[in-house]
């Protein structure tokens, strides 16, 4: 009985949901992105338990089997310590996951409130916040992050702090633009005239409408933040070499480059596929959540 009652009550919602899911699943690139991201998350969750040589992620040494090419025993070959590269790359997914989540999370936590304040309040608050944001946007993020790491000292934690500090302006821009248009929507003005307080308007009208663009941007940024952290690791200012972090692995592997190319190839491939996955997922989410912006 309830099985009949529920579709009746939620028919419109279900229909809309089905349409939204259809737009997503009908896009091959969105599904590819979802698959890549799912694979990445599964590897981060279960990878360390499944890898063939778990000790190799913690700096074991097998000098007899240094720099072996890919084979049945070592699918991605071995590194200069004789460690299994597959193991180290898979364990590295966990580092990348927390790095991506932390940078995106902190950036959104700083950027969203500022963006809402700027867009919704307007006036002098908006002018001040947007000016500061513009200044931060005027220095390429990687360079500013490099400067902050230089002040704090190298290390993955400092790298993550530095990248978080340069990442938030994008969120201010995004949310400010959204809140600014929402502020003048008839239903918001109607709520205001009927005596709704700012807190109520923000919670009921502004923030819920900011969620879709936020989800899209966060998905894209997960990939880009992972890429940026790996870049810092590569130049020697992020994670330090024995740690199984992709950028740092490539930094070491670079020294073994022409002859032992697989050493840098596989960690880089993982970075590429992860970033690609989050980008495609973000694109798919945008087409799904905001069909008007869908590109041909």
């Amino acid at each position, binding site marked *: 009985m309830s099985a009949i009652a529920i579709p009746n009550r939620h028919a419109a919602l279900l229909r809309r949901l089905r349409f939204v899911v259809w737009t997503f699943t009908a896009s091959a690139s969105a599904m590819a992105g979802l698959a890549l991201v799912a694979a990445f998350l599964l590897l981060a969750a279960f990878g360390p338990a499944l890898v063939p040589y778990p000790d190799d992620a913690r700096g074991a040494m097998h000098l007899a089997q240094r720099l072996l090419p890919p084979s049945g025993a070592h699918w991605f070959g071995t590194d200069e310590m004789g460690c299994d590269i597959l193991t180290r790359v898979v364990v590295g997914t966990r580092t990348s996951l927390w790095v991506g989540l932390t940078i995106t999370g902190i950036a959104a936590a700083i950027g969203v409130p500022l963006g809402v304040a700027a867009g919704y309040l307007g006036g002098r608050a908006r002018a001040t916040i947007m000016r500061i944001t513009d200044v931060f946007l005027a220095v390429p993020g990687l360079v500013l992050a490099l400067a902050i790491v230089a002040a704090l000292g190298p290390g993955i934690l400092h790298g993550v702090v530095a990248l978080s500090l340069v990442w938030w302006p994008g969120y201010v821009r995004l949310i400010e633009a959204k809140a600014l248009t929402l502020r003048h929507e008839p239903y918001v003005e109607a709520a205001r005239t009927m005596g709704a307080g700012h807190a109520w308007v923000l919670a009921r009208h502004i923030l819920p409408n900011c969620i879709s663009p936020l989800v899209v941007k966060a998905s894209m940024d997960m990939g880009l933040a992972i890429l940026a952290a790996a870049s810092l690791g590569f130049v020697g200012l992020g994670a330090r070499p024995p740690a199984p972090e992709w950028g740092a692995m490539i930094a070491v592997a670079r020294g073994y480059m*022409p002859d032992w190319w697989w050493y840098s190839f596989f960690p880089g491939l993982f970075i590429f596929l992860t970033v690609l996955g989050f980008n495609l997922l973000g694109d798919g989410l945008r087409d799904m959540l905001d069909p008007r912006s869908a590109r041909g």
Partner: protein
Amino acid sequence: MATLRTILRRLALLGVMLGGLVLITFTVSNVAPSDPAALAAGPDATRAMIETVRHEYGLDQSLPMQLARYVADLLRLRLGRSIQTGNQVADDLARFFPATMELVLLSMLFSVLAGVPMGLWAAVRRNSWFDHAMRALAVSGVALPAFWAALLLQLVFAVWLGWLPTSGQLSVATAPPDPITGMILLDALLRGQWAVFAEAARYAVLPAFVLALPSLAAIVRVNRAEMIEVLAADYVTAARAHGVAPRRVIGWLALRNAMLPTLAMIGLRFGWTLGSTVLVETVFDWPGIGLYAVNSAIASDFKPVMGVTLAVGVTFMLTNLLIDLAYGWLDPRTRSA
């Protein structure tokens, strides 16, 4: 003169932005948890040396005083000394900056000259194999780690095929042309040293290409999307109906209107490219400010890093100013805004 007023207003805004940039670098260098005097004195300094440096740099004075001193130094282009080499940072920057600009300009030139026609053609021949290839390029180009792509291209084109040199700007045996701009390619051209030019060009191909890839992808993507939209616009249909030649419709009417967002993307990408030189110069041993910043940062040599940050920030701001003015020229509606 609305245009003149716009330019003046933009210049005033640039001043505000520069002030903000200086505040950021000041904050990073002075309020960071680590002791700036210890940083400036270097890793092996004794306590007494640190105190001397503290006094010498005025770090024992109040923050506003320090800020005033910092700004006064910047205005006289005194960016401090590198602790590794003892060189003036301003001199180092003047030496390394042209190499970076050469790389950035080359890669931007390539990504615009290739990206705009590629996006245009993908839009005109929508859903053809070319369009699909362009969409694949657009998504993968942005996701490609620049340093990894650089290593792989080195492997294939320099080591395996041997077509191009691995790294550097010129071979050791070749004397660079006497500097005019400091950009080797341009200087060789200006002085008519064709052999040097050809050699320098071979060295520049790989780094410029790697640096250009993400911008190329972004420009193709934006230009394609805009062209698709513009080609469906009423005024384009009207022009076609009036018998305007297709080449003129696509190449002039549509492209000109599609160029606005593309131009905004070019501006954005310019800053991104400047930042990425940090990675690409590291792989290719390209003697620019990116490599300089990385080597200094690893050695905790602080002044050069801040110098690079300032130089890059100022360059990016000036580029954005130019882009904004070009915007006004392309689209009269934005002039008064």
